[in-house]
């Protein structure tokens, strides 16, 4: 690929920035500049995004919370980590965001272990905590809300 970026060459009519000499016939989605501010994980899950700047609901109706299931807390942390990882896919050099991501991964690991010890495996690898093959007994996601607290 040829490096023909505007910084290397005098500005022509097909490179540079709007308005005088834009690269024409290309898409222009404004990049998100920062992973801050962020919602707390439960609010991020309810809204469907970690980032207030991307929270663009239909009308003024937004989710205040999510259904109350035993896994909701773990879902929130996993979701926050996932949404931040998509941001990192297009911002891989943002070290501050990466530090937050690692914190979320640690929280997710702890939350996963707590859930698995109480309700059974989420992944096959969670069977390492089991004393018998209980993969089939832990709740299936499409059944109503899974198992309630004993």
């Amino acid at each position, binding site marked *: 690929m040829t490096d023909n970026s505007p910084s290397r060459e005098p500005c022509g009519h097909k490179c540079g920035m709007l308005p005088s000499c834009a690269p024409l016939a290309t898409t222009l989605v404004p990049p998100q500049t920062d992973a801050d501010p962020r919602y707390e994980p439960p609010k991020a899950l309810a809204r469907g*995004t970690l980032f207030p700047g991307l929270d663009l609901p239909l009308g003024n109706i937004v989710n205040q919370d999510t259904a109350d299931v035993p896994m909701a807390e773990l879902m929130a942390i996993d979701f926050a980590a996932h949404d931040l990882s998509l*941001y990192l896919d297009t911002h891989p050099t943002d070290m501050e965001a990466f530090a937050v991501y690692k914190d979320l991964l640690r929280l997710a690991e702890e939350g996963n272990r707590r859930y698995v010890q109480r309700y059974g495996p989420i992944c096959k690898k969670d069977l390492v905590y089991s004393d018998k093959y209980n993969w089939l007994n832990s709740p299936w996601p499409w059944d109503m809300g899974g198992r309630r607290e004993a």
Partner: protein
Amino acid sequence: MFVYEKKLQYPIRIARPNAKLAKFIISQYGGPNGELGASMRYLSQRFAMPTNELKGILTDIGTEELSHLEMVGTIIHQLTRNLTPEQIQAQGFDTYFVDHTVSMFPQAASGEPWNAISIGVSGDVIADLTEDMAAEQKARATYDNILRLCDDPDVNNVIRFLREREVVHFQRFGEALNKATEKLDQSNVYFMNPAYPRN
């Protein structure tokens, strides 16, 4: 490879079965703008992508779409549970029920089965990423319409989550396309096709 997690991305508990809603929400399972097409589109496009960033974003969003497919299936499953044949008929679900009972078949609300013709896999970075951005908008517009048609708060809570994910994915595909375009010869981005032939 993929490893299954016995876990929805977002909790779903629909208190009231209602096959009327299932009739049109099924379009996001197997319709032209649905989650099956989304996952197949992204997970298929990634093989020809020239950069790690593009392989990454398509893999990660494509994988998330599989979890959305499971969520839409869960909505339909819970909406159609414990219904009598009389209720199935009264709620207009009989034309689906006769072939599929209350299992999940990937079809549009119109009854047309899922078709790969609804996805684009061109092998051209700009064409594919632009397709992906349009696909996210089409899915967002379909979720908008579901919100306009559906009056069950338990369902709409989940639909609003899925709709917002389309907005976020549009942003990420836009950023990925920006970055890919920056690496091309900007005097004529279409002359350079980095997917083929490979340099």
